[in-house]
């Protein structure tokens, strides 16, 4: 009885050092050596300035940019406060928010039905992607605002379109931050 209590104490200490310190620190070392960029969040650097992470979304509101999905992380795309809206499907706040966004998006773009990802928040609030439908929907607005031909913008979107992993896993998607940064390097945003 008493023996097992002492073992419990020593066992907790010894295994905490093994699995709580040596294991994660060892993995950190290996990851930093073999996958340096990925282990540190795939940061984008432009002329010495950090512009974001390739896999963490940012908010965009100007007409010359592709817009990300709505976000419930903090005040929007705040990685120190990740999370969703947690609104149930019959919640009035959800329906009012979507109705408001639909109205705004139709005014800014066209009166076609809005691709659903553009009016729904993601689970993380940090979704870096929109669907190809969501990108296509915004092409005329972005092109018009930048005085570019739609085909040019569409070709750029096509370049940023990612298919399913291995051809069948997940969903096709377009990375908004990378697309917008490329747009900016082609053409200064207004």
């Amino acid at each position, binding site marked *: 009885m008493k023996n097992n209590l002492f073992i419990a104490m*020593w066992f907790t200490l010894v295994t905490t050092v093994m699995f709580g310190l040596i294991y994660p620190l060892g993995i950190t070392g290996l990851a930093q050596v073999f996958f340096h960029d990925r282990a540190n969040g795939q940061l984008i650097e432009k002329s010495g300035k950090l*512009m974001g*992470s390739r896999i963490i979304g940012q908010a965009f509101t100007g007409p010359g940019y592709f817009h990300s999905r709505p976000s419930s992380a903090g005040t929007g795309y705040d990685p120190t406060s990740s999370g969703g*809206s*947690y609104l149930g499907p019959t919640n*009035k706040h959800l329906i009012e928010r979507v109705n408001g966004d639909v109205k705004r998006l139709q005014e800014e773009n066209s009166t076609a039905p809005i691709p659903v990802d553009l*009016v729904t928040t993601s689970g993380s609030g940090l979704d870096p992607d929109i669907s190809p439908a969501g990108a296509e929907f915004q092409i005329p607005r972005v092109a018009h605002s930048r005085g570019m031909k739609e085909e040019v913008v569409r070709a750029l979107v096509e370049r940023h379109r990612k298919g399913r992993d291995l051809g069948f896993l*997940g969903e096709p*998607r377009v990375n908004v931050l990378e697309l917008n940064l490329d747009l900016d390097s082609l053409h200064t945003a207004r």
Partner: protein
Amino acid sequence: MTANGWFQILLVLAVILAVTKPLGIFITRVFNREKTSLDPVLRPIEKLVYRLTGVDERHDMRWTEYTVAMLFFGGVSMALLYLIQRTQQWLPFNPQKMVNVPPALAFNTAVSFTTNTNWQNYSGESAMSYFTQMAGLAYHNFTSAATGIALALVIIRGLARKETDKLGNFWVDMTRCMLWVLLPLCLVGSLMLVSQGVVQNLKPYTTVALAESQTVQVTGADGKTSAQVVHQQVIAQGPVASQEVIKELGTNGGGFFGANSAHPFENPTPFSNFFEMVLIFAISSGLTYTLGRMTGSPRHGWAVWAAMVVLFLMGVTTAYWSEAKGNPMLAGVDQRASALQPGGNMEGKEVRFGIANSALFATMTSDTSCGAVNSQHDSFTPLGGMVPMINIMLGEVVFGGVGSGLYGVVVFVILAVFIAGLMVGRTPEYLGKKIECYDVKMAMLSILIMTFVILGFSAVSVVQPFGTSSISNSGPHGLSQVLYAYTSMVGNNGSAFGGLNGNTTWYNTSGAVAMLLGRFFMHIPILAIAGNLAKKKIAPASAGTFPVTGALFTVLLVSTILIVSALTFFPALSLGPILEHLLMSAGKSF
């Protein structure tokens, strides 16, 4: 629903089928202390652990001593986790200068991680230091998983051994499980995840300049909103991959970040998502083979496996169908699936995962006691969100938590053969062991405790202001939130309808009680059954023995699981998700 969606779902199942036998054989060898190819490396470490901790590896325990050792270890390690959280600001690896966790929250979290629940009333990125995450939380992911697996092995030994009261040594089972089963898979798995983009560093959070500055509405301390321009984004970092892999493999489910496996740094690509889902089912599936192998009846193991697959497919079909249909309340929105978009109910879901992978992850995380989420269950359609809830109410026996799924399903097997015995008027037998009054009593005890806690605490919470003030959705969805919370905590799952504010005195305390009852009041009856079974003789099978292999047994097991849970929880479910579904179809919002 799309053909590609179904292909992805069935592919996961196919991989699980493929790993079941090799993993099951490996686990058998580890716990029988037979030779494995990892011995040259791990055996010296194992011996060192015994020398440092004073374990006599030749000592064999009775079920009572095994229980005492398990409870001592749970208590001591829980106390250490509490202590780490309460002192984290003075400990190393804290670049963000996180302050000490307040007592009620630290207690809830300590209980939560010790019991393999990983219910989280905090967001990792704003509350926990890297030291707490590594040495406190991730460490418990290892130990609580190993405890579950050890217990599963004890009940298997109870069935396999005869006329003995010895069931193994808790410390040896723990050590071998962590070193041989969990560690090698974690080493490979965490590097695999890093290669996909899961971060692994000890750096302070990274500040970056936004590509386009944003004007946002901020609510001040005085409750007034004001416009503020934001130029920067602060990106949370940390040793995520090493925790992510054991979180899934050990069916723990506690996210490094608040958004859990929806967060791009925890689950960056569809491939990482696929890998994480396989990890969630792998060990539990392997254990069904271990059950068959150690009791000398591999076909029994497969019959149990088949029952689990039937229940899994029922869940994932319902969830996928319901989520793919979308939300009928949204007007002017295109929710159809096409080559350009997944469509469906995308609130709370990531574009890279779409509908199929979100519904699949939700089903798997609740079939097991994992509780990691890659989408927010709170925002699922009523019937889609009911699937994870029912899965947990079934007792998480569809593969189930590592170990806990197996001993959970053995309880249902005992009930099933008991019912079959009553129907034909013979003493029920299970693999040659007579099932008697004591065994059935203990089995029922472990089932009733769950009912009692879920319905009892939910009932109190929906009539008292300290309970209702945390509910964030009105109407039947509010009841679903509370019901889901207690179901998840007593089931040691840890996923949530995240809108419920659990960080209050009532939910922190009642939740901790629910988690402890759900864990240890399951464990003690299970160990008692194991101890009792081991003492019995093994009777040879006769013409009158009800076979525990084959399709008839699988059907009986599935029916027993469904009937017990349906009778218990149908009234509560009809007032929550089912009512919400009917009202949603009628266009009513709350």
